[in-house]
Structures are given as structure tokens and as C-alpha cells.
């Protein structure tokens, strides 16, 4: 360890050089004094005594130098000197340095934000004991359209069979999908929302999670359906909702009709297994009302594989267990064709690695985030090319200085170090600034992916992972823009450089190649953003088939089941609220990502190949939604389900092949039990049902008023009230309506209140996110590229003043001069644009899933980046051009 101590001592010495120097001077002075004194005593003359002493020491300066070599690490000292020198150089060219630092900071900051998002959503391992051993169980099945369907939901009885089968090789735990539930702590008037999940009793112990307070769930909590109404809350929720009150244990809250008691708080870091949401309350799976149902897939299954256990045999075992379960279950399906059942049963179970958890948010945004990362990286490259050009230009300006250094004995390595240190200072400053930028922008960007009513919550810590990424990025960037100019500077030929005739053409060529690269990257960014933007435009211009203006959606629930007639009465009562134009009821709002589908049968034929989609609506719903009736009539109060139906044009076309369907009937086939018969009373225009994109679906609207086989009204616990308001801003009526609903009848309450417009926008969140960020980065890329081009042209005009002067002196016109100056650079722009175009067309196939009705080869899509880049290039070329044609030959020629 002594070498380490010595190294530390030397590092320390670096910062107290002066004291060290003084000490050494004193010590050597005292040495000489002692020696001289002794020599004098030996009878020498004073001069002789001093001469001998110095001789014996071997020279004062030599001794000092050899001590210095020990006291400091020589190269570190030179590094320090280079850093000081580099800083002075940067400070001398303030404007260019600031421009370089700002553009790099923007790019580095954007890269770091992108990394933070990607890390938090996709990469960061869950804070559990052995995240590398965690897998989720998924199934692949080919659906009726022949496309592969991937789903990760499981029914609890199936899970129980698999858990038993796997127990020697892996621990299986069930974790339900995150649910944003309504819960109340005190009175019913104070409903709040919380993210809850139902988890297996042994989840916490299998994950190695400790309680922060009280206890966690145990397998005993998870043994008998409905028997253990206990809850564990997350540390984060405890902090926000209860201000870390230790008396939280024993508090109760109500979800639906169940009363839960809080028994513990989990450790701080753990916020569930679904990145994108933070679980606040953990309940035992046995408290889920679907716990014993075989036909409800409501939870994910995670496997914590024991060390050394092989995955494949385990997978095969669970696959056969699950198949056996589904085969058994399918025996009661009478309304499905045998082929359809066989297709459904042919599902393959797989183990998906889940060290960072599993969530729909991950699935939905993975490719978008990677696309964003690539865009951001391109912007970083553009910024680096800019700075590289700047450094090359400066290196040229400093060729004489470098040559002088070489002539007086500086090694090439030292010159390399000199320039690299300068680059490192730039990169470091930019990284620091970029980090500030990233600290702000990552949460902001996350905000743009958020649907407004249910914000994504994500831990975005600035920890060692981000720091490490930042350092790696800084080093990478330094090498990227610093190495080339540094090599160039260090290979300077003193003889020619000092004469002032260094080979300028080589340097120009390098800068031109860099410009071409920059334009190519820029073109690529612009091209891809153009595709994103027109995708968003296409989606926004989709005809909906209904009007979303001034339309409010009140998702309403009841505490106790309420008859379907009572819902219709509620709608009537709400019409009296001032500002309300129309109110209707439907089982759900359109475009609320809801779908209810079944096979149908016409005239007793077998199940249809195409499935039909259904929505229960009240009389007048068509008017409220402004969906025009094509034929027949709207529902009246006497229409019931089963009984009457209104179908859309696609339905009529699909199932009745162009004949008039009015008066005809069809049967809706349920998975189990007999179907229900409907007579078609009307035909309406098509409208969007579940999603804004994709083919138009065949939809049958059924009366909201449904009755049992005995003729009594059925009960409904949930429906959507659709309110068309008089005012332009429908949300102005929000609080009045929220109050009016429970007043109309005590059982009702509004759980979600959104405008229909929000529902539509929620469908294009990803596209909006990509289009917004891509546009932003396009502007940045274009700006950086034009600044780069301007810099190169400006520099080349400066370099060629003399040549321009001579040309003018012998009679060249301004036009000729302009051509000389810009023709090289603009041809580089052209080369770059072509390269960027090729790269763009190649990359499109990886991005296809993001595009909607966009053809990458459309002339408009291709023209946009080309026009933008050439316009920017021309703009950037104007000032240097003016400078070139205003060159006064007399001054230019005298200048050298």
C-alpha cells in the first residue's frame, strides 16, 4: 500500500507546489550552509568553501529538478498546465466556445434525459433480492385473423395448478394488473383514488422485501377467499397520504363493499412490479372477487427461478399444466366451433425475463423510446461534428503555435494531450450544463406521455447509473470531436507551417466530409420527424363518425347494484342541471378502450366467422353522439335487451350482404349458455368504436334497458353518462355534475370525469409524444447544422482572402467569387442529403409500426427535409458570401 500512500502524497503536492518549492529551497540552503561552515573550519577560503560545497551537491538546479520529479507526477503536472492553457484558449474565443458548449449541452442533456427515461422504464432492475432470477409467464396464441397474440394474464385456479407443479424449481407469485380504485377512509363523500394490486401472500418474502412498519402479507393472508381483509401500503403512499404517521396501522378503508385494515408499510424502494405506475396498496389475491373464477384472467404470474434450475424443462411442465387446465375449461363451451376451440387451446407458454418488472407501459413505449433515443443520438452526433469543425478550424489557426512547439522540442504526444485536454474541458462544461437540462427535461418529457386523468408515475433518481452514463458519454463525446482535430494538430509539419503554407486542402477536405455527415444526420432526423408528424395528422383527421364537441363522459358507479331503469331515470334527472343540453347513458363511452364482442348467428346458422361488437345505449344516445340514422328508427323506452338492436353500416354489409337488414334478426352467442335474439330496428352511420385506427368494426347497439328471462330489469353497477353541454368548455360543468349525480340518487357516484376529446387524445398519446419531440429535435438539428455550415464557410472565406483578392485583382466578378466560395460546401450538402435520404429509407422499415397511413416515399415527405436543409444552407451561406464579395483586394493582398 506504500505506493498508494506515495501517490496520494504526490497528488496532494500538486496543489501545494509553492510551499514545497520554498521548503526545498530552505533545505538546500541549509545543507550548503552546513557544508560551507565545515569547509571553513577545514581552513578553506570562503569562495573555495562554497565552490566545493556546490560541486559536491552536484548543482543546485539539477538537484531541485530531480526532487521535483519525485514530488510530483510529471505528466499530471503537465496535464494541469495544459488544462490552464486550454481554458485560456477557450476563454479567448468566447463566442465560439459558448456556442460549442451550449449546443453540446443541449445534445448531451437530451441524451441523458432519454437515458434516464429508458433506464427508469425498461432497464433498471426492481429493488428485490435477485431481480436476475425473475421471469413473467406469458402465452402466445394465433388469433382468428392468423396473427400472433401475446398475453400475460392468468386465471387464478390455473395459477394455483402451476404453482404446485413448479414448486421445486421456482416460486410462482401472482400480481394483479394495477387498478386505480376508488376508496374511502371515512365518509362516502370523500372518495379518493389509489393504485392497488392484489398479490400472492408470499410475494414480499420471495422478493426479499422487509417491512418499514408493521408486517407484510403472508401466505396465511392468502389461503381462503375473502377471509383476510388486510392491506400493506407502500412507503411512498405512507409518506404522501399519511405523512409517515406511525398510527396508520389499524386504520381501515373501504373499496366497494370490502373493508380493509392496514397492517404494514413496505420498505421504501419497492413500488410494485409495473414500471410506469407506482403501487400504493397491496391486497391479498384472495380478496379479489375473481379469485376462484376460471374464466377471468386478471393477474400476471411471476416466477422466481431457483438458482441452478433449468428454464426449459420447467417451461414445458407449466405449459402442459396450463393446456390441461384450458382443455378442461373448454369442455363447457357450446357456442364455439371445434376449430376455434382447437386454435385457442394451441397456446405456447413462455418465460419472459422480468428483472425490471413487467407493464403495459413498458410494452407500449419500448420502441417509441428507442426511436427517440436514436433521434437524440443523431442530434448528439450533429453537435459533435459542429465542435469538431470548430476545433479543426482553431487547430488550423494555431498551426503556427503547434509548429513552434514542435520546433522547440514538444513531443507529438504532448500536442495530442494539449488539444484533447481542451476538448475534455468543453465536454465537461457541456456535460455539467446538460445534466442541469436533463434534470428538468426528463420529468417534462414523461409528462407528455401521460394521459391527463391517470398520470404515469416513475421514479427518476439521479443515481450512480445516471452518473456513470454521463461520464461515459462525456468521454465518448470528447473522443468523438476531439480526437480528429488533435491528431491533425499533432501531425503538424513545422517547416511548412512556420512558412505559413500548410496544406490547407487536406484540412478543407476533412471539414467538408464532416459537413456532409452532419447534413446526412440532419436529413435523417427531419425525414423521420416528418413521418411522425404526418402520422399524427392522419390520425387526428380520422373521421370519428360522431361529434366529440362539448361532450362530457361521466364514468359512474354504484355502491349497490341498481336496476337498469334507475340509470335511465338518472339521465333524465341530470337534464335539469343548468348548462346541460342532452344526457344519455351507455355501458361505456366510445373510444374508451373498451370492447364487448361475441360471435353471432343469423337465422340459426352456425357461429359467424367475423365477430360482432356491442354497446348498450339508451334511447336518444344517437342524438347525443350526433350519429346519423340511415334507416329505421332510434330506440324507444319500450325496447329491451334482448329484443331490439340498431346496427351500423359495416354490420349490415358484413352480415346481410347489402340486403336491407331492417326487421331481420340475429342471435348473440355467449361463450356459455343460450344466446339472445335481437330484431334490427335501425341502421346508423359507421363510427369509431374501440380505437381510432384500424378497420371499421361491425357494431350492434343494444338497449341499455336489459331484462332477465323473467322480464325484470337487470342490475348494473357501472355505466357512462354522456353529457352534451351548452358551453364551449364542457369541463366547466364538471363540479356541478359531480355533485348532481349523488343528489339524484344516493347510490350513484362519479368515478371518472373526462371530456370525450380527452379520450380521443389518449389514443394518440404515443404519436403526439413522438411528433412533438421529433419536431423539437428537428429544429435543434437544423439549427446546429446551419451554424456548422456557417462556421465552415466563414472560416474558408477567411483562409482564402488572399486567393479571392488575387482573383478580384485580375478581374473576377462577384458571381465568380461566390461560386468559388460556396460550390464546394453546397455540393457537400447535396452529398450529405443523398446519404441521409438513403439512410432514412433504410431505417423506415424499423419504424413502420409507428406510422399510420404514411408512405415514406411520398414526394411531400421527401421534399420537406430537402427543402428545409437547402433553405437553411442558403441562409447560412449568405453572411460568408457577402464577406467574400466585399473582400478588398488591396487590403487582402497586403494582409499576409
Amino acid at each position: 500500500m506504500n505506493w498508494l500512500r506515495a501517490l496520494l502524497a504526490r497528488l496532494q503536492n500538486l496543489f501545494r507546489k509553492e510551499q514545497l518549492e520554498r521548503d526545498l529551497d530552505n533545505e538546500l540552503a541549509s545543507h550548503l550552509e552546513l557544508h560551507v561552515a565545515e569547509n571553513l573550519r577545514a581552513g578553506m577560503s570562503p569562495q573555495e568553501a562554497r565552490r566545493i560545497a556546490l560541486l559536491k551537491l552536484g548543482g543546485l538546479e539539477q538537484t531541485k529538478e530531480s526532487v521535483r520529479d519525485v514530488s510530483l507526477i510529471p505528466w499530471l503536472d503537465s496535464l494541469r498546465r495544459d488544462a490552464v492553457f486550454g481554458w485560456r484558449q477557450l476563454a479567448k474565443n468566447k463566442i465560439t466556445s459558448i456556442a460549442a458548449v451550449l449546443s453540446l449541452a443541449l445534445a448531451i442533456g437530451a441524451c441523458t434525459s432519454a437515458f434516464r427515461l429508458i433506464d427508469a422504464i425498461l432497464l433498471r432492475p426492481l429493488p428485490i433480492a435477485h431481480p436476475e432470477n425473475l421471469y413473467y409467464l406469458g402465452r402466445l396464441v394465433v388469433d382468428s385473423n392468423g396473427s400472433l397474440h401475446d398475453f400475460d394474464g392468468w386465471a387464478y385456479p390455473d395459477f394455483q395448478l402451476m404453482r404446485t407443479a413448479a414448486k421445486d424449481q421456482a416460486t410462482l407469485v401472482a400480481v394483479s394488473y394495477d387498478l386505480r380504485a376508488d376508496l374511502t377512509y371515512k365518509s362516502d363523500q370523500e372518495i379518493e383514488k389509489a393504485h392497488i394490486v392484489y398479490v400472492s401472500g408470499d410475494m414480499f418474502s420471495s422478493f426479499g422485501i422487509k417491512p418499514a412498519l408493521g408486517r407484510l402479507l403472508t401466505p396465511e393472508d392468502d389461503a381462503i377467499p375473502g377471509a383476510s381483509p388486510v392491506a400493506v401500503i407502500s412507503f411512498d403512499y405512507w409518506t404522501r397520504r399519511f405523512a409517515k404517521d406511525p398510527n396508520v396501522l389499524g386504520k381501515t378503508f373501504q373499496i366497494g363493499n370490502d373493508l380493509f385494515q392496514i397492517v404494514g408499510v413496505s420498505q421504501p424502494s419497492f413500488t410494485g412490479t409495473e414500471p410506469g405506475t407506482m403501487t400504493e396498496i397491496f391486497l391479498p389475491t384472495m380478496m379479489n372477487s375473481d379469485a376462484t373464477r376460471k374464466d377471468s384472467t386478471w393477474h400476471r404470474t411471476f416466477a422466481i427461478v431457483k438458482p441452478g434450475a433449468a428454464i426449459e424443462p420447467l417451461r414445458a411442465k407449466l405449459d402442459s399444466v396450463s393446456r390441461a387446465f384450458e382443455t378442461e375449461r373448454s369442455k363447457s363451451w357450446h357456442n364455439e366451433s371445434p376449430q376455434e376451440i382447437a386454435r385457442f387451446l394451441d397456446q405456447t407458454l413462455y418465460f419472459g425475463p422480468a428483472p425490471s418488472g413487467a407493464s403495459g407501459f413498458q410494452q407500449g413505449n419500448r420502441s417509441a423510446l428507442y426511436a427517440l433515443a436514436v433521434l437524440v443520438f443523431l442530434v448528439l452526433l450533429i453537435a459533435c461534428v459542429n465542435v469538431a469543425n470548430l476545433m479543426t478550424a482553431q487547430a488550423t489557426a494555431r498551426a503556427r503555435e503547434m509548429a513552434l512547439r514542435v520546433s522547440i522540442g514538444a513531443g507529438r504526444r504532448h500536442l495530442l494531450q494539449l488539444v484533447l485536454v481542451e476538448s475534455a474541458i468543453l465536454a465537461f462544461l457541456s456535460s455539467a450544463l446538460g445534466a442541469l437540462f436533463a434534470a428538468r427535461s426528463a420529468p417534462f418529457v414523461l409528462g407528455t406521455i401521460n394521459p391527463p386523468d391517470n398520470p404515469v408515475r416513475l421514479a427518476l433518481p439521479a443515481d450512480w447509473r445516471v452518473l456513470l452514463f454521463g461520464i461515459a458519454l462525456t468521454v465518448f463525446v470528447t473522443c468523438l470531436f476531439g480526437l480528429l482535430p488533435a491528431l491533425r494538430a499533432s501531425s503538424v509539419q513545422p517547416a511548412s507551417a512556420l512558412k505559413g503554407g500548410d496544406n490547407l486542402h487536406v484540412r478543407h477536405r476533412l471539414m467538408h466530409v464532416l459537413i456532409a455527415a452532419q447534413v446526412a444526420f440532419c436529413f435523417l432526423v427531419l425525414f423521420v420527424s416528418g413521418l411522425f408528424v404526418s402520422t399524427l395528422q392522419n390520425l387526428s383527421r380520422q373521421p370519428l363518425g360522431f361529434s366529440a364537441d362539448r361532450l362530457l363522459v361521466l364514468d359512474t358507479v354504484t355502491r349497490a347494484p341498481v336496476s337498469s331503469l334507475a340509470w335511465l331515470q338518472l339521465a333524465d334527472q341530470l337534464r335539469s342541471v343548468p348548462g346541460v343540453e342532452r344526457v344519455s347513458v351507455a355501458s361505456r363511452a366510445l373510444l374508451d378502450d373498451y370492447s364487448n364482442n361475441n360471435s353471432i348467428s343469423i337465422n340459426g346458422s352456425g357461429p359467424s366467422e367475423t365477430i360482432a361488437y356491442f354497446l348498450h345505449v339508451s334511447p336518444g344516445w344517437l342524438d347525443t353522439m350526433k350519429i346519423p340514422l340511415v334507416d329505421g328508427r332510434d330506440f324507444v323506452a319500450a325496447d329491451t335487451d334482448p329484443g331490439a338492436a340498431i346496427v351500423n353500416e359495416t354490420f349490415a354489409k358484413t352480415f346481410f350482404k347489402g340486403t336491407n337488414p331492417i326487421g331481420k334478426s340475429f342471435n348473440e352467442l355467449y361463450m356459455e349458455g343460450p344466446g339472445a335474439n335481437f330484431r334490427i330496428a335501425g341502421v346508423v352511420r359507421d363510427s369509431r368504436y374501440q380505437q381510432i385506427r384500424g378497420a371499421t368494426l361491425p357494431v350492434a347497439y343494444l338497449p341499455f334497458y336489459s331484462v332477465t328471462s323473467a322480464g325484470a330489469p337487470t342490475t348494473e353497477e357501472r355505466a357512462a353518462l354522456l353529457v352534451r353541454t351548452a358551453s364551449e368548455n364542457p369541463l366547466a360543468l364538471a363540479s356541478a355534475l359531480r355533485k348532481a349525480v349523488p343528489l339524484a340518487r344516493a347510490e350513484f357516484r362519479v368515478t371518472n370525469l373526462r371530456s370525450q376529446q380527452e379520450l380521443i387524445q389518449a389514443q394518440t398519446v404515443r404519436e403526439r409524444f413522438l411528433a412533438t419531440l421529433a419536431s423539437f429535435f428537428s429544429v435543434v438539428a437544423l439549427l446546429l447544422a446551419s451554424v456548422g455550415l456557417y462556421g465552415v464557410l466563414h472560416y474558408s472565406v477567411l483562409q482564402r482572402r488572399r486567393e479571392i483578392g488575387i482573383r478580384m485583382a485580375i478581374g473576377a466578378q462577384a458571381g465568380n467569387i461566390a461560386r468559388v466560395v460556396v460550390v464546394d460546401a453546397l455540393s457537400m450538402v447535396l452529398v450529405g442529403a443523398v446519404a441521409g435520404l438513403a439512410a432514412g429509407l433504410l431505417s423506415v422499415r424499423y419504424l413502420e409500426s409507428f406510422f399510420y397511413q404514411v408512405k415514406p416515399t411520398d414526394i411531400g415527405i421527401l421534399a420537406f427535409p430537402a427543402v428545409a436543409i437547402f433553405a437553411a444552407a442558403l441562409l447560412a451561406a449568405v453572411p460568408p458570401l457577402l464577406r467574400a464579395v466585399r473582400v478588398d483586394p488591396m487590403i487582402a493582398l497586403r494582409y499576409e
Partner: protein
Amino acid sequence: MGDKNDVWQGTLALMVLKTLQTLGALHGYGIARRIEQTSGDLLSLNYGTLYPALLKLEQEGYIASEWGVSDNNRKAKFYKLTRAGRKQLEREAREWEQTTEILARFLSSKEQPS
């Protein structure tokens, strides 16, 4: 330089440590003189080479230094052995003895006529 031997770095450090063990705290000039005297003036020590060696030993923690006053009332920097230095001296001395012993045996062994 003829018949006087130059000192090489490794052995100089050992000599410094040994000198400090024998004489206690001592300034640079004193150490240099002592080494010359002990060697019976067989060594020609360039005094200047002593100071980098002293600094190196100090950085390694084998000796410590302090400003003080010499016998004839002059300010001087005094060096003394640390605990780690004492151990290092023992270790180095042992190694050195071993090396010389091996070499001695090697050189005194009779040549085998071929």
C-alpha cells in the same frame, strides 16, 4: 570517477534508513557525511542525489521530517525513522544479506575444469 564507487538508488535508501536507525534524527547533510564516513570514503556520494531519495522515503512513510536547529545553531530539516521505516529496514537488510551471501557463495565456488 576511477576507483571510487557510485551509489545506486536502492542501496542508498537502505543506507539512509540504517544511518537514521543508528544516529536518530539527523539532517540531510549529516546523513550524507555519515554515509561517506561509514564507507571509509570508498563511496563517492553526490550529495544532490540524497534529496530525491529522502523525499521518496518520506512519501512512502518510512521516515518523517521536521524543521529544527543543528548542533552549531543552524536551521535544518531533520529526518527520523518511523515505525514502518524500522520494519522496512529489517526487511531490506535481511534481503540484502541474503543476496550478498548467495553472490559470495557463487563467486567463491571453484571453477570446474571442463
